[in-house]
């Protein structure tokens, strides 16, 4: 990747530093080392972004492999500090950020599956993995993001799509896509997190419609119901057997409508 961080960093408003590394195991692993060093030495965490040209051990949730070959995607981890109170908003705010990046930059109709999978026509285009370490009232956050830029033939993700396959605009390469990504994230981070704004934007970008049939898998339990929106904490509301159940953990499965 030929991006010059010395040219980019002075233009950024929220991010203090940026590292672009050709090949890493995973950007979250590097970020974790930084967080551990900062905690052990009682240093404040730099608001920073680490970008990799290629990851040879990229991982999603539950240790699922996230295929990250060179030149095919944007693989990044953003390091942030937030107050503990803001923590529940972060997954939704990050989903809004990625969906709006795809919409604004590439005119792609990206939508959000609760809480933060980014889909286009039910195919995954981007994923988020957030890790947090709470220290008193401050949360150190590692926000891993993977965006598919070029299509990849990969048996591990048959239901995936990529920017190149969907954009109707002139696509001018992964470097410009990466630069636009850095600038978009930075502009969003420079704005304070407004609770109502985050929820309203999330609702407008949600893939779910009231009445959609949903299954929620939580440990060995499965709850089936219909989508009833999100509450003020961002929890998914499921209407099931005459009851409204608020869900903050678990995997949502979109059941086919009968």
């Amino acid at each position: 990747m030929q991006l010059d961080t010395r040219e980019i960093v002075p233009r950024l408003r929220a991010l203090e530093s940026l590292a672009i590394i050709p090949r890493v195991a995973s950007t979250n692993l590097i970020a974790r080392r930084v967080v551990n060093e900062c905690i052990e030495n009682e240093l404040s965490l730099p608001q920073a972004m680490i970008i990799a040209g290629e990851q040879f051990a990229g991982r999603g949730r539950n240790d699922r492999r996230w295929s990250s070959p060179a030149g095919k995607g944007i693989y990044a981890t953003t390091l942030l500090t937030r107050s503990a109170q803001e923590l529940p908003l972060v997954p939704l705010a990050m989903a809004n950020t990625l969906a709006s990046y795809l919409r604004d930059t590439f005119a792609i109709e990206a939508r959000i599956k609760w809480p933060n999978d980014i889909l286009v026509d039910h195919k995954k285009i981007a994923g988020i993995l957030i890790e947090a370490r709470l220290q008193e009232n401050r949360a150190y956050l590692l926000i891993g993001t993977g965006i598919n830029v070029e299509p990849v033939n990969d048996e591990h993700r048959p239901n995936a799509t990529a920017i190149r396959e969907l954009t109707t605009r002139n696509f001018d390469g992964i470097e410009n896509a990466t630069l636009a990504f850095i600038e978009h994230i930075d502009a969003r981070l420079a704005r304070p997190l407004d609770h109502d704004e985050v929820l309203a934007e999330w609702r407008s970008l949600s893939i779910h419609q009231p009445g959609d049939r949903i299954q929620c898998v939580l440990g060995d339990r499965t709850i089936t119901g219909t989508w009833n929106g999100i509450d003020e904490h961002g929890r998914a509301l499921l209407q099931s057997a005459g009851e409204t159940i608020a869900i903050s953990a678990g995997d949502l499965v979109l059941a086919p409508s009968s």
Partner: protein
Amino acid sequence: MNFKEILELIDKVAESGIAGVEVEQGGTKVRIEGKQSHSKVFTYTGEVKPGESHSIPMAALPPPAPAAAAPAPSPQAVPAGTHVLTSPIVGTFYRSASPDSGPFVEVGSRIKKGQVLCIIEAMKLMNEIESDVDGVVAEIYPSNAQPVEFGEPLFAIRENS
């Protein structure tokens, strides 16, 4: 046999790697099983003497019926010198960083303040939960991948004196 002695015995069993030990004393029988066992860490089959200031965490007692889960202990039920770490959020409890890696801690693990003990996932955010004291893990209440509520006990930690 008082609670301090029971906890010391747990440490000894954990350190020695033996399968377990059973002690009967004055009508009180205590059985402690080591890491190899998948059953409860210890079962207390004796009576608690009247006037005994320490009580047994409910989760350490055998469940009343196989189908019923042991009720969560209240922090008040835990002996002095034992700290109960509770869940700061609603979510799913994980004992390891990933399905392939080993657990952060086991019963008997010596831990430091600030050490990560588990992960609680909420809204796809993996929250690393740290110990707020130095000590030894005496009990791990939820099982792996179990949903936990706000304030639900996660670990009993015998604090270093």
